[in-house]
């Protein structure tokens, strides 16, 4: 048991809780969070976005997948970065200008339909839970690697810290906590790497495991062309449809600021994603036994002890543990806030007031994610996250792209596309999570459904919209003015405001 590491994890959790407690005194209502955050500067805001985005999959999962399967896995971080480029060119400014807080807000505003809003809400909950599960899994895995505790303990710790934070209402403070967590994650991954690489180069350790052709050379596995392109489609298009990513865009002052912030985020993500690959390669040299024992996800945490050992190794492991917990806490907080917000407003809002509904919904979201975590242990962390990306790419990506750039989108079209994409991708996800993926081509399609489900969603959204032209939204022209014209022009942008819609 590494006492230093336990202390580091405790410190990160306490700091997160403390920042949340300070926020409690400042912010009382839901809109406090959004409105107050709009005073946030671009670098702080970009740090917060990156801090929220870099999850367990980025901090632990990528290195584990690289160790296990080699160069093709580098498409994960590439895709998670390029996803922000897609978000930038198609969505960032118009989404900010729409003044929607959440994806259901956007759906309701754009196609002027309550059923479309409900379907979008259900999908936010689904994607949010799919994304929460790997965070909890990663926490369990990390704490068990550090202390030997059973895996549910770490999941419980993260769940409780997130709950305490979100339920106490410290939502505004999340911006500051998440910005801090980006820099913590970067330092926590970079510092040990410097020492580890120096030791590797000094000793010139064996390269035996680096020579396997299937690992070193790209595109070697069966169905690799399909699998890699499907992964590319899911990650490039999925980012824009993640509920916790979209909420963050409201914290920009206007459309211009949304674009500038996104470019800064791209720089921060690029800097971070240079690091996990190296851990994967080092893992291949020093920790290839993790492949046989099925514990590749913990390679990042294992390396300092194996390569350096002693107090130095313990210190660096503690730093990595702190960084990993920062990843779980920041991403989980963001997800619980957005899932809780949607659940509270669309499901519980009828019986409870705004803030109590939000708190109950937060508890429900965390509890559901915990149960799913216990049921689905054994799935690689990065792959579980990737499934959430596939669902987002098959549902909200078509809604956003067509909603912003195509006049023809109707409410029935939106509902049809969301349903077809959601059902196709989530049935594939369920099959994988329950361990029932068949072999051969069908298995490839089920493990990476995006290349099938994304075109199907687009086709049904466009097709049904064309068949229901009579249902074009009444305020379409005003909506498009709001989405596309710069804020400094004095134009009539219609009256929609999410605060009025959410009652």
């Amino acid at each position, binding site marked *: 048991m590494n006492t230093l590491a336990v202390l580091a994890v405790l410190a990160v959790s306490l700091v997160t809780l403390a920042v949340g407690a300070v926020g409690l005194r400042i912010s009382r209502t839901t809109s406090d969070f959004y409105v107050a955050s709009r005073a946030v500067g671009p670098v702080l805001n970009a740090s917060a976005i990156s801090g929220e985005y870099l999850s367990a999959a980025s901090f632990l999962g990528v290195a584990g997948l690289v160790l296990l399967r080699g160069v093709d896995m580098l498409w994960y971080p590439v895709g998670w970065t390029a996803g922000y480029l897609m978000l*930038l*060119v198609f969505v960032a400014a118009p989404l900010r200008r729409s003044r929607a807080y959440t994806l259901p807000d956007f759906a309701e505003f754009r196609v002027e339909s309550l059923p479309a809003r409900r379907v979008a809400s259900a999908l936010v909950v689904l994607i949010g839970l799919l994304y929460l599960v790997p965070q909890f899994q990663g926490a369990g895995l990390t704490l068990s690697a550090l202390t030997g505790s059973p895996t549910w303990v770490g999941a419980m710790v993260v769940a409780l810290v997130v709950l305490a934070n979100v339920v106490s209402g410290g939502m505004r403070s999340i911006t500051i906590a998440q910005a801090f967590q980006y820099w913590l994650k970067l330092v926590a991954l970079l510092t040990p790497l410097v020492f580890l690489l120096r030791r590797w180069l000094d000793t010139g350790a064996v390269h035996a495991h680096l020579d396997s052709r299937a690992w070193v050379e*790209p595109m070697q596995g069966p169905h690799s*062309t399909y699998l890699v392109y499907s992964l590319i489609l899911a990650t490039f298009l999925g980012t824009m449809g993640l509920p916790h990513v979209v909420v963050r865009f409201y914290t920009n002052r206007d459309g211009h600021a949304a674009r500038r912030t996104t470019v800064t985020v791209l720089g921060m993500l690029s800097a971070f994603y*240079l690091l996990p*690959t190296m851990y994967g390669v080092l893992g291949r040299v020093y920790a290839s036994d993790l492949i046989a024992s099925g514990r590749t996800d913990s390679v990042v945490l294992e390396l300092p002890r194996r390569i350096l050992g002693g107090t130095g190794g313990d210190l660096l492991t503690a730093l990595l543990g702190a960084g990993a917990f920062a990843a779980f806490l920041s991403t989980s907080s963001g997800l619980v806030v957005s899932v809780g917000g949607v659940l509270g407003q669309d499901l519980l809002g009828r019986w409870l007031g705004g803030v109590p509904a939000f708190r109950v919904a937060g508890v429900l979201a965390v509890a559901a994610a915990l149960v799913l975590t216990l049921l689905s242990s054994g799935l690689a962390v990065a792959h579980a996250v990737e499934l959430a990306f596939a669902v987002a790419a098959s549902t909200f990506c078509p809604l956003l792209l067509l909603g912003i750039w195509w006049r023809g989108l109707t409410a029935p079209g939106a509902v049809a596309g969301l349903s077809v994409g959601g059902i196709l991708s989530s049935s594939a996800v369920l099959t994988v999570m329950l361990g029932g993926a068949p072999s051969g081509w069908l298995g490839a399609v089920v493990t990476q459904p995006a290349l099938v489900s994304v075109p199907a969603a687009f086709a049904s959204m466009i097709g049904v919209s064309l068949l229901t032209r009579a249902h074009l939204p009444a305020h379409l022209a005003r909506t498009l003015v709001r989405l*596309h014209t710069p804020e400094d*022009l004095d134009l*009539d942008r219609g009256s929609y405001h999410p605060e009025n819609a959410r009652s």
Partner: protein
Amino acid sequence: MTPPEAEPGPRPQRVVVTSPRVGRRRPTTIASEIDAQSTVGEVYMRSLMRIQLRLALTVVGLLAATVGVLPLVFRLSSGVRRMHLLGVPLPWLVLGVGVYPVILALAVFYVRRAERIEADFTDMVGRERGPS
């Protein structure tokens, strides 16, 4: 890149006469044409959306041509697959490092162009506002 003053767009004053909304109020500026959802206003909105969409698709095209083709290149050419640069296998270097500056450059290119398009649009629509 033409300076905004040299924009050869249609002169709005001339079309105002044909506006269908003369009965309610007399639109004299592009901003009011857009507010009134007149044909002229629609033309301006459509052209703004078309230019922005074309820019976005250009960026996607460039991304596909640089990053998107890599799996195919690796698949088809065993030479590229096994090439080394500075002692590191080329695919690792490209996917682990080289792709990121390309993505960043595309982002910067996009933001500059998009902001310019909007500045031109503001000039065109805003210039007409003033004493009328």
